[in-house]
């Protein structure tokens, strides 16, 4: 099944930048970031449809030893 997604809006870009990530974009930057981000998201969203159900992420956390080992 193909995962559905809506096109990311300029309001979302502005909101995430201002409200969550603490940086501001001017009008030109909002336009350019929106266009680039839409292309990136289109690519990345395709990963959601791969057979990943039983696969754990490759992140490896290593328990930290005390100085006594």
């Amino acid at each position: 099944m193909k995962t559905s997604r809506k096109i990311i809006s300029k309001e979302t870009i502005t909101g995430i930048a201002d409200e969550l990530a603490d940086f501001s974009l001017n009008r030109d930057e909002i336009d350019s970031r929106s266009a680039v981000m839409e292309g990136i998201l289109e690519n990345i969203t395709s990963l959601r449809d791969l057979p990943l159900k039983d696969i754990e992420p490759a992140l490896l956390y290593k328990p930290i030893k005390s100085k006594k080992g």
Partner: protein
Amino acid sequence: MTDLTSYGVLDLLNGYKNGDFSPVEVTKSYLDRIDKYNDTLNAFVLVNKDEALKQAQDAEAAYNSRTSTPSLLGIPLAHKDLYSTANIRSTAGSRVLKDHVPTEDATSIALLTSHGAINLGKLNTHEFAYGPTNEQSMFGSCLNPWNTEYFSGGSSGGSGAAVAASLCLGATGSDTGGSIRIPSACCGITGLKPTYGRISRSGIVPLCWTMDHSGPMTRSAKDAALMLQAMAGFDPKDSASSQTVVPDYINSLSGDIKGKKIGLPNRYFFDQADESIEESVMQALSVLEGLGAILVPIDIKYIEHAAAAALAIYLSEGTAFHDHGFNLNQSLYTDQVRGFLELGNFILAKDYIHAQRFRTLLGQEMANLLDEVDYFATPGLSLTAQKIGQEDITIRGVDQTVFSAILRNTEPFNLTGLPAIVMPCGFSNDGMPQSLQIVGRPFDEAGILNVAHAYQEASDWHLKKPIL
């Protein structure tokens, strides 16, 4: 008299031992070339002249005393400016770190120094290693020695240009999506990205923790083996460092590849490679066949999703790494890198995790294939170096950005952490180098170095030098 900058590492070591020439003479020859040509290329961003000469004098004294000598004594190298160097400015090519002077060497530089290598200076890099062309740097673009209207490739562009132009004998590089292999391919040298964890990343400014690798960039596979021998090994300061035993890389260079199976992917890697690159790579593979290797067609399932996964991971991790100081220093970043760091804020956590899960999926596919074959072979890049400032390219009728095209064949092996080496195998019609990539099983650097060595024993592309 032979130009002293034309010798390989073993030739220099033998010459030093026999008293044919000295480390001081060789170091001065390299410093003269830097003085003469660096303004044209912008490869060095700092020349460590006085200290290099002192190191050379110490090396000369050690040879004269005929005591046992370390493996790289008197070999003139240079280092990507992403690497920390004690008491030497280390900027990562960014105005954010323009006055940064570390107190300690990166582990791999400390190892090279302890093996007797001379540090000629620091080399240009794309700002924070965040780009494959080396066009964006506080020092300006690094130019390609084969044609200075073209980019050097990046992010280790200074390393690629300096080795190709004989401004140093070898250099360090780092590779997150291809940043050792891309400038090596663009500049016509040999570049090795070892297995993830083989060489310590400690002391190298991170771009993306789970995909960063460091490695040597040299004129030949033999020189790469000698540098790798000094750089490889466990480092408790690097959480991803491997305890796998370091083999003898030099003695593994037999040149015998008879019966070795080389998997040739039947799609993706060649699909969007320039036709003349495909032709050169196929000719190189026929040389390997002539040496007894067996070509086996393979299909790497899911490979077409590699770029998306890599993008999700480096955008997320890059933004996380720079989060602390980004808002304070926004105006100091180049526009391109600032844009990437902003974009990382829009990746959903679940997509980052999917990308990490994809790495396991892709890694398993490659592992299954590497049960059947010994190596994979691909074009190093699907294009050659392009003119500075060129953003788009059409290959086989497909319009794409230079940025995505240049990463296409290298970044899958950053996702899976497999060792990969590129070597020159021809030239395009406009005179720019083309390359072959050989990929191996985890920690089989010895194997891929041996394939590259076998090829270089049977061909002379790696001996060609740009006219400056």
